């Protein structure tokens, strides 16, 4: 049962950084899109020459293609160069149905969408399964899919090498003239596409996609089902491209593989989107209008060659001088006003106000919350974790100690699902976690922090925390999640930074942001990976107090740390790892005196007497995935 906690002043003030939702009326944007589309539907009634209808058609056509591309590629950063394939699948589906089976044109469009969508899902289901296919590799792979598809089509009866002529296909009479029919169809598709793109950008789906863009692994660990979300985005993107293709087939009247399955379509939509701004739903549309008009004005004036060069110049200038695109740049100029009122909470709510959990704090030393049995992880034969048995009891703070490379962070990475274990089991509240996806583990009630903070760089501090509340905590939408997030920012003392970007925080604040993110999903178990590392002594005192408050509000804590002062002050129990194996277990003060523990930390004593007084390693950064 989740009740939005009302520490004062959480009266929602969504940040200006996220598009669309920023203004008071969340429905203003879709209403504006629909109104604009309705107004533009009257253009054919003006009786302009067919030339204008065609120009407007092309603009809308590119708006659909660029915006649909952006839903996957702009939002998640997976730049696809395969949009030509999905567009082409739509073209050839419609063309074949019309030319070969005499289907009425409008009936071919849903099929075109479906074929493109299925193709995209098949490609995505394979490609998204392989880790490491990102950036330029994803771009090349999707481009190769385009050429493979084109080669298959040109060599099979679908095309037969000669292209498909649609001279016999009837153009439905939606508008007064054939060219106005195409215009109206494209207008409707563009309106739908923009509504979809906007809707996604302000929804939970959009929040997940934007998080994937910034840090996919961290998003997954926060509870974002990254694989499913990418697939959904690709499916939507492809279906819309398929419709655009279906319409374009009849517009072209004669389709050939050589003109469809090229590098031109993907590069043009990339250019348009990058120029307009890929993180905004309307960015690609802005770019599409600009580029289409530009190209058209040059072709019309017989300067096609110069136009091509100019597009090149614009692309270069846009990337070098406006890497975020036109739209964000304009937004920054317009939104100079103090975008959001300071949360009234800042003054009213003392930082220490722990949000009241619905559940009462559990008694310490209760039943076993998490039970790892023979948990093992090897990296290509290098054994990082050699089969450890660890029990975490509800309500306790368990210290996880050991020298560098002993397997502490690996333990956290395996339990949180960041790595798949190579052996053993993890039972959490009588549920087996070993081998299931990280986002499911997050939903099950476990959260973690990263030793080196990994905030989502393009999202505000508030949205960073809201993401965890939404996905790990299962909240339905961004507005509710932001309210919840505000309480956790106050809890971590970051309420004044809610609308800053993570770049503006210092290390201490970033560490606290990690904590707020880990707590916002209301986990029953929190895994803290060296939260104190790199902090000054006074900051450590703050953090120790905060960890204690985390336990007090009801979460169980596993605490990897090198700072012994903090370990001694905080932990109820410690377990010590050495070389991937469990070395000792018990109260901290007692365990640290055991000879085998001292040996593990300090090496084989020659004269053991000198080592007993201070067996404590100082805070050292731990490298790699120790």
């Amino acid at each position: 049962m989740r009740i939005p906690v009302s520490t004062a002043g959480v009266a929602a003030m969504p940040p200006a950084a996220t598009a669309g939702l920023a203004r008071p009326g969340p429905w203003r944007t879709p209403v504006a899109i629909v109104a604009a589309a309705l107004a533009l539907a009257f253009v054919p009634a003006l009786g302009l020459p067919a030339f204008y209808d065609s120009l407007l058609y092309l603009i809308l056509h590119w708006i659909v293609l660029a915006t649909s591309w952006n839903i996957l590629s702009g939002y998640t950063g997976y730049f696809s160069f395969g949009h030509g394939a999905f567009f082409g699948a739509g073209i050839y589906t419609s063309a074949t149905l019309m030319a070969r089976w005499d289907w009425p044109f409008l009936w071919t469009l849903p099929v075109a969408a479906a074929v493109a969508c299925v193709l995209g899902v098949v490609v995505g289901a394979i490609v998204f399964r392989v880790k490491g296919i990102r950036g330029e590799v994803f771009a090349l792979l999707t481009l190769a899919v385009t050429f493979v598809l084109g080669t298959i089509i040109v060599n099979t009866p679908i095309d037969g090498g000669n292209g498909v002529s649609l001279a016999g296909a009837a153009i439905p009479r939606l508008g007064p003239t054939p060219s106005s029919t195409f215009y109206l169809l494209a207008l409707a598709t563009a309106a739908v596409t923009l509504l979809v793109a906007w809707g996604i950008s302000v929804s939970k789906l959009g929040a997940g996609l934007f998080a994937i863009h910034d840090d996919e692994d961290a998003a997954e660990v926060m509870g974002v089902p990254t694989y499913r979300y990418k697939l959904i985005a690709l499916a939507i993107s492809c279906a819309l491209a398929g419709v655009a293709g279906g319409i374009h087939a009849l517009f072209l009247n004669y389709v050939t593989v050589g003109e469809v399955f090229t590098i031109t379509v993907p590069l043009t939509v990339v250019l348009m989107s990058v120029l307009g701004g890929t993180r905004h739903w309307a960015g690609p549309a802005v770019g599409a209008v600009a580029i289409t008009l530009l190209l058209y004005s040059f072709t019309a004036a017989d300067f096609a060659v110069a136009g091509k060069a100019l597009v090149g110049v614009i692309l270069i200038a846009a990337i070098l001088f406006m890497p975020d695109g036109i739209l964000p740049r304009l937004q920054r100029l317009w939104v100079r006003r103090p975008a959001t009122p300071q949360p009234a909470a800042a003054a009213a709510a003392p930082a220490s106000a722990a949000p009241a959990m619905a559940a009462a704090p559990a008694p310490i030393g209760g039943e076993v919350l998490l039970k790892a049995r023979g948990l093992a992880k090897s990296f290509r034969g290098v054994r990082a974790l050699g089969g450890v048995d660890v029990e975490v009891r509800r309500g306790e703070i368990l210290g996880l100690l050991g020298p560098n490379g002993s397997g502490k962070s690996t333990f956290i990475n395996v339990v949180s699902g960041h790595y798949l274990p190579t052996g053993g089991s993890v039972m959490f509240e009588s549920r087996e976690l070993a081998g299931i996806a990280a986002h499911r583990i997050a939903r099950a009630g476990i959260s973690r922090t990263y030793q080196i903070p990994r905030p989502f760089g393009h999202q505000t501090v508030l949205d960073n925390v809201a993401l965890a509340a939404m996905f790990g905590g299962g909240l339905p939408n961004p507005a509710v999640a932001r309210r919840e997030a505000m309480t956790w920012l106050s809890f971590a003392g970051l309420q004044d930074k809610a609308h800053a970007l993570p770049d503006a925080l210092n290390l201490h604040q970033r560490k606290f942001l990690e904590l707020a993110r880990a707590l916002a999903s209301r986990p029953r178990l929190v895994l803290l990976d060296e939260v104190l590392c790199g902090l000054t002594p006074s900051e450590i005192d703050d953090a120790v107090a905060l960890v204690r408050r985390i336990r007090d509000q009801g979460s169980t804590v596993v605490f990897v740390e090198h700072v012994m002062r903090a370990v001694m002050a905080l932990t109820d129990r410690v377990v010590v790892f050495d070389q991937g194996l469990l070395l000792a277990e018990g109260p901290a003060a007692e365990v640290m005196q055991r000879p085998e523990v001292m040996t593990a930390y300090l090496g084989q004593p020659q004269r053991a007497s000198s080592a007993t007084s201070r067996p404590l390693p100082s805070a050292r950064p731990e490298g790699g995935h120790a």
Partner: protein
Amino acid sequence: MSGFTMPSATLLAQSVASGVFVGALYGLLGLGLSLSWGLLRLINLAHFAFAFLAAYLCYQMATMGMDPLLTLAVIVPLFFAIGAALHAAMMSFRITPFNSLLVTFGLTGIVEALIQSIWTADFRKLESSYGEHNYKVAGLYLPLPELITLGLAAGLSFAVWAVLRYTDLGKALRASAEDAPIAAAFGINQRRNALLLAGTCSALASVAGVCLALGFTLAPSQIYAWIGVVFAAVMLGGLGRALAPLIAGVLIGVSEAVTMAVTAPSWAPLVSFTLLIAILLLRPGRAT
């Protein structure tokens, strides 16, 4: 769909030979691309535009009476300078690999427009005395331009391989690619090395361009025809390596040529791109 026809042994051998020749050009084009991607983190699409610009310059000078191979003396230093200048500009903007792809695509469009405005969009074919020399060895037809391409590709690949492996410069370049800040801390002058390498990559592209002019018909739109298959060769071979693009290029060239002989020429792209997809899916880590 054309059915499978088992070609005669001679035809098959001839296909393999022509596959080796075209594969050598894939390798030569891929060499500079692989080096700049692997060692400079610059995915240079303009590599292909430079090759075609060099091809057209070679064509121009040859039609004015110069020996096509002699034009290398002008073209290579020119493109070295162009490549170094481009990289100097790129470095001052601290561009990411992905954005370098977009920027150099823009550059490719500009070069294409330049070529089209000077030499028109028509097909151009360099007619030189080299084209008239053909050798017939054991029933196989071996044209001289292709032999020159093969020789240049093999020679340059080995030269680059030797430099990377045995010289201090090569070690410095590989160290910088591995970890730039650490390499700098060890006193490596990265700026100078990077400019040197970028210039070399463009110079290699221009040599490939001269080979293109010798053996192929030129048109501005043909720039894009080479991108896919050469990328396939580069990815197959692995980034930042000297001999691998040549080997991978020949492998792809031969499999394409045999596919063409067995089925129909229009099926050829399937081989290289299916290969590329398979490589990327099976070994994605290698490319990053």
